């Protein structure tokens, strides 16, 4: 049994592909059942957010299962394999575990340290748990992913990063506009970090909110969440005139706003200052726009730099976090291999039990006059003997040693157990 993770995220795939592969609403339940029923897939969970679509599975044969899953994605989303295969990442075994831990600890996020991903992972696994598509392995993986994320959060300053980035954004907004209360704000696109920054702005008094999304329905959802009004993507240039603060995170592969368009907007709004935060990777707003008077454009790197001047040794914190993850991956793998010895232990015990019943039957044949009471005493003795004999190898198998694989093989050979692995 191996952990296999397969999916796309903001680093590997454009927003178009991510959107096409997304498991939204009812698709999630349907998809998770279909995934679980694929040949060779024993456990399954699906994480689908704006920045990533990841399938977590436990499989017997990795390459074969990966192939099945790709076919499934293709047929489920009605997308040719060639369209998304290049953007797909596939991790198995140790790499898969590490990947899950890095995602939950927010080391894989667009803005390292943003806290929402942990909740999203929890939700994804809880959903799978509720649908009974997960088992021992993924349940443990989820628990460990959460505890690792918590360790990273408490033992390093990584989490401060995202918070500081949105604080930096608010601080900047305050140095451009005195009072944020009367300002209008446009959320262009969606995303973990964008929403976090949006919340921060709103906590600081911004009330008038416009939400633009390529998918209008999603925009409406978000608008409700932020108490704002949805704006159709086609209309956003029109509405831009009213926005004092813009947070952009559309994930489009090119610029959605260029200098000329912004110049027009500025004329229309009589050059009242605009603060634009472009969180998208790759950038969605032409950096040239910053050259316009009264337009202040910051992208993620700019904000990161602002934060870096405040927080020293962010790199050190990242290294610390990676170390924690290494430790936890190690622990998990050891637990997994201890799981491997379970079938051997069971087989060993079974073998002993078989010998016992066999021998007792033989005894009954040889000593027909044996009364119930004496037979029980003999049975008791036999059980005691096999227990005592089986105990030390059982302990040895359960023990966490490096040569466990060899041990398992040796015991199988010594006791004549046929290697039939679960």
């Amino acid at each position, binding site marked *: 049994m191996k952990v296999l993770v397969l999916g796309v995220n903001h680093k590997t795939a454009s927003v178009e592909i991510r959107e096409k592969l997304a498991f939204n609403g009812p698709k999630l339940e349907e998809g998770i059942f279909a995934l679980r029923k694929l040949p060779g897939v024993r456990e399954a969970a699906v994480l689908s957010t704006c920045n990533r679509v990841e399938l977590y599975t436990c499989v017997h044969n990795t390459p074969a299962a990966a192939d099945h899953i790709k076919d499934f994605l293709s047929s489920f989303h009605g997308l040719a394999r060639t369209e998304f295969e290049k953007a797909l990442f596939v991790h198995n075994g140790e790499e898969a575990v590490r990947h899950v831990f890095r995602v939950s600890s927010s080391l894989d996020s667009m803005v390292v340290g943003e806290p929402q991903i942990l909740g999203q992972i929890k939700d994804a696994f809880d959903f799978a748990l509720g649908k009974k598509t997960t088992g021992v392995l993924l349940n443990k993986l989820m628990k460990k992913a959460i505890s690792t994320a918590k360790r990273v959060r408490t033992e390093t300053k990584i989490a401060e990063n995202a918070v500081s980035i949105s604080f930096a954004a608010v601080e*900047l907004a*305050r*140095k*451009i*506009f*005195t009072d944020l209360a009367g300002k209008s704000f446009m959320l262009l696109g969606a995303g973990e970090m964008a929403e976090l920054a949006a919340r921060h702005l709103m906590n600081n008094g911004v009330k008038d909110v416009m939400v633009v999304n390529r998918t209008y329905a999603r925009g409406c959802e978000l608008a409700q969440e932020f108490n704002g009004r949805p704006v159709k993507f086609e209309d956003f240039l029109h509405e831009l005139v009213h926005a004092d603060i813009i947070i952009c995170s559309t994930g489009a592969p090119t610029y959605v706003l260029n200098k000329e368009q912004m110049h027009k907007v500025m*004329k229309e*709004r*009589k*050059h*009242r*200052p605009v603060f634009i935060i472009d969180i998208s990777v790759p950038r969605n707003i032409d950096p040239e726009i*910053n050259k316009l*008077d*009264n337009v*202040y454009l*910051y992208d993620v790197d*700019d904000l990161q*730099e*602002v934060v870096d*001047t405040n927080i020293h040794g962010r790199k050190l914190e990242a290294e610390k976090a990676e170390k924690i993850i290494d430790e936890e991956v190690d622990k998990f793998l050891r637990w997994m291999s201890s799981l491997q010895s379970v079938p051997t232990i069971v087989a060993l015990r079974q073998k002993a039990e078989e010998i016992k019943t066999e021998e007792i039957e033989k005894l009954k044949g040889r000593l027909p006059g044996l009364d119930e009471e004496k037979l029980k005493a003999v049975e008791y003795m036999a059980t005691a003997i096999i227990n005592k004999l089986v105990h030390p190898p059982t302990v040895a198998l359960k023990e966490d040693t490096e040569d466990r694989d060899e041990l398992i093989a040796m015991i199988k050979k010594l006791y004549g157990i046929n290697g039939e692995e679960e």
Partner: protein
Amino acid sequence: MGIEIYLFEFALTFYFAASIVSVLELFKSTKTSSRIMIALAVIGFLLHTSNVVARYVISGHIPIANLHEASSFFAWCIVLIFLFLEYRYKIGLLGSFIMPIVFLVMLSSSMLPRKMEPLAPVLQSYWLGVHTVLAFLGDAAFAMAFGVGIMYLLQEHYVKSKHLGGLFQRLPSLQILDEINYRLITIGFPLLTLAIITGALWAESAWGSYWRWDPKEVWSLITWFIYAVVLHVRLIGGWRGKRAAILSILGFLVVLFTFFGVNFILKSKHIF
């Protein structure tokens, strides 16, 4: 030496102390340091006010009759507006950009002849008070706009270049600097307009003609045009922020030339 001289020297000393503290505040400021700066400025201002009153009592006319008195009164007006803004808006570091200007104006005033001479008959008119007070209050508003404009450009530079070090944290927001800059010009402009009108009326009663193409008059008119343009482009073309700040800085340089330059370089009927 009369008491008014002492009052002047003390006021100058306090302004000097205030501007030293205000400059030090650029490097490190605390609540205490800004309180000390304001306290020094207030004491200086009270002494300065007493000096102006004393000169009025002694000479019997508005003490704006020579270049010394005029620049002293100019400084007084700047401090007046500064203290008002400080009281009203509590803008961080405003003093650091204003008090040194005040001190320099006072210093130049201290170096000019201070003798109180009887007023020439032509100047003996209530127009003197009205015209000069209006002119200097207007100029003082422009001086403040100059300081605020510099603060704006500095803060704008920090935000635009994304290097948020230096004074970024302590300088106020761009919006408020721009707003105050605009307000000051909307105060200064009508004052200057009225000063020019009262000047013309006074000239008519003293010399028989409203306008004589005196260099002072010409330069005042140039100043007036500059600020008229500042207001016009702001209201019509939406020239705010950086451009407005630059224009208000240029405007004040012209004000300074009109005030000092014209007297030293060009010949003018105006004593100041």
